[in-house]
C-alpha cells in the first residue's frame, strides 16, 4: 500500500531525510516515531504530496504522490498537526465543503459520533482544542480514504475522546484502511501500531513490531516486589541476573536480564525468611524505554 525506497529530502544543504526505505501493508497501522527534527514531518509531507522528494521513490496506494497528486487526493485522508481550517468555518460547513470536493455525501454521522453535532454551527475558532482535532479527524476520514495519515492525533485530547479516537482508528483498520501514525506518545504507538519505524538524525534506525523493537534493547525487565516484613530490603541481598536495584514506596525494584531466574530466587528468599509476599509485578521494557535508549545513545543500525 505504501512503498518508500531510498527516499531523501533536503532543504538547501540541510538533509532532513537521508535515504530511508520501508513498506507498509494494506490495513496496517504503522507508527512513525522520532524526536523533533528526525525527519518524520518531511517524510509525511512528501508521502502526502505536499513536498517534492530529492531522491528515491515513493508510492502511495500505487500512485506517485508527485506526478499523480490529483489522483492521490481521493485516496488519502490527512489529519495535519496544525488545525488547518479557516477560523470562521463551522463543522457543518467544513463537512459539506470538503465532502463536496471529494464528491461524496457529507458525513454528518461522523460529527455526531465525535460529539460535534451540538457544535455544528459553532465557528472553528470557538471550538476547544480537542473539538478542533476531532473535526479535523472527521474530515480526514469522511471520504473513506485508503491511506490515512495521522499526525499527533490525540495531542491535547481528554481520555474519553482519546479512547473514542482509538476505537475509530481500529474501525478504519478493520475496513481495510492503512494508517500512518506519527506520534510522540509512545504508549499510543505501542498500543495501536502493528509496526513502528524509528527515525533518528534523518535515518531509519529501527523498524518492526513494538514487541520486536523492545526485544532488541538491553532487555532489562522491571520486577517490583513488596513483602510483609521487608525481608528483601537489606541492600546487601543480591539475586541472579539483576543489574540494578532500588527501593521505592516499600517496593523493592529489580532490573533483570532473566526474569525466571530472578523471580525464582526472590520467592525462594522470601520463603526462607518466613516472610509473606504482598505484591509482585513484572514489567517488560516498554517502547518508550527502548525509544529513549535508542535516541539517547544515537545509535544508527
Amino acid at each position: 500500500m505504501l512503498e518508500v525506497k531510498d527516499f531523501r529530502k533536503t532543504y538547501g544543504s540541510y538533509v532532513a531525510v537521508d535515504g530511508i526505505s520501508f513498506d507498509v501493508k494494506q490495513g496496517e497501522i504503522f507508527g512513525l516515531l522520532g524526536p523533533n527534527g528526525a525527519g518524520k514531518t518531511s517524510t509525511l509531507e512528501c508521502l502526502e504530496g505536499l513536498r517534492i522528494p530529492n531522491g528515491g521513490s515513493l508510492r502511495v496506494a500505487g500512485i506517485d504522490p508527485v506526478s499523480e497528486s490529483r489522483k492521490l487526493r481521493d485516496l488519502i485522508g490527512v489529519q495535519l498537526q496544525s488545525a488547518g481550517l479557516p477560523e470562521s468555518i463551522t463543522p457543518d460547513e467544513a463537512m459539506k465543503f470538503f465532502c463536496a470536493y471529494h464528491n461524496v455525501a457529507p458525513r454528518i454521522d461522523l460529527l455526531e459520533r465525535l460529539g460535534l453535532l451540538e457544535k455544528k454551527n459553532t465557528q472553528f475558532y470557538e471550538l476547544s482544542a480537542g473539538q478542533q482535532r476531532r473535526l479535523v479527524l472527521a474530515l480526514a476520514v469522511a471520504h473513506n480514504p485508503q491511506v490515512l495519515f495521522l499526525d499527533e492525533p490525540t495531542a491535547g485530547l481528554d481520555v474519553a475522546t482519546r479512547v473514542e479516537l482509538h476505537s475509530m482508528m481500529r474501525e478504519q483498520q478493520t475496513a481495510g484502511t492503512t494508517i500512518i501514525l506519527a506520534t510522540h506518545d509512545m504508549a499510543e504507538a505501542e498500543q495501536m501500531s502493528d509496526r513502528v519505524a524509528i527515525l533518528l538524525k534523518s535515518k531509519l534506525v529501527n523498524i518492526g513490531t513494538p514487541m520486536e523493537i523492545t526485544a532488541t534493547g538491553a532487555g532489562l525487565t522491571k520486577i517490583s516486589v513488596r513483602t510483609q516484613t521487608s525481608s528483601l530490603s537489606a541492600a546487601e541481598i543480591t539475586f541472579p541476573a539483576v543489574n540494578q536495584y532500588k527501593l521505592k514506596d516499600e517496593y523493592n525494584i529489580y532490573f533483570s536480564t532473566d526474569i525466571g531466574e530472578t523471580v525464582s530466587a526472590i520467592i525462594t528468599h522470601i520463603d526462607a525468611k518466613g516472610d509473606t509476599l504482598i505484591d509482585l509485578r513484572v514489567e517488560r521494557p516498554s517502547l518508550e524505554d527502548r525509544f529513549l535508549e535508542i535516541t539517547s545513545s544515537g545509535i544508527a543500525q
Partner: protein
Amino acid sequence: MNAFIHHFTFEFRTGIRNKQLLLMNYLFPMGFYLMMGFIMAEINPPFREVIIPAMVVFTILAATLLGIPDPLVNARENGVFRSYKINGIPSISILVIPALTTILHLVIMTVIITVTAPLLFHAPSPVNWLNYGLIFVSMAIACAGLSVLIGVVSPSSRMTVLWSQLIFVPSMLLGGMMVPYSMLPDVAGKFAQLLPATQAMNAFNGLAMGKDAAFSPWGSVSMLLASGILAFGLAVYLFSWDSRNTIRRGHPLLALLVLLPYIIGIFLLA
C-alpha cells in the same frame, strides 16, 4: 459545481461573519459614505455631482485592498491552504472564490449607495446604467485581482498592509474622488493614471454620469479589465501553498507586471 457552491457560500458568509471583513465590506464604506454625504456635500456642493461614483470606487478599494489580502496571508501562514491542497481544492478556487464573494458584497453596497445617494444627498443618478454596471464590474475585477495578487506575494500580514496602503492612500488622494483629475499637476496626473481608482472615476464620468472624461473612458475600462485579468493570472502563477515552500514558480517581483496595462495606457492615451 456542488463544491463551488459550498465554497462560495462559506466564503460569502465569512464576509459577514468575520468582524474584520464585515468592517471592510460594509461598515467602513457605509460610515465613510454617510460622513462624506452629510459633511463634504455641505462644505463642497460640487462633490454631490460625483458622490455616487466616488463612494462606489471607495467601497471597492476598501473591500478589496483592505479586505482580501490579509485573510489570504493568514490562511497560508496557518496551514489552511495545505489542508485545501490535501483535500483537492484547486488553487484557482482558493484565489477566485474570495474575490467573487467580495464582488457580491460590493454589489450590495453599490446598490445601497446608488439608491440612497439621490434621496439623502440629492446626488445625480447615472445616466447610462449599462455603462455604470460595466465600469463597476471592471473596477471590481481590477481591484479584486490586485488584492489577490498582494495576498499571494506578501510574505506576512505586515507587508500586506504596506502593499495595500501603497495603493489605497494615493488612490484616495489622487484617484479623482476627492480632487478632480483635471486639477492635478501634470506629474501627479501621470502617476494617478497608474491607479485603478483614477481609471474608474474617468470611465464613470465619461460613460455613466454624463460628464466629461479627462482621457479616453473606454481606454480606462480596457485597462481595468486587462489589469484585473493579468493580476488573477499572475496570482495563480505565483501562488504558493505554504510559506515554507522553497520552490516558487516565479519571483514575487513579477507581480509588478500588473501595472503594465496602465503604463501602456499612459503612452497610448496621452
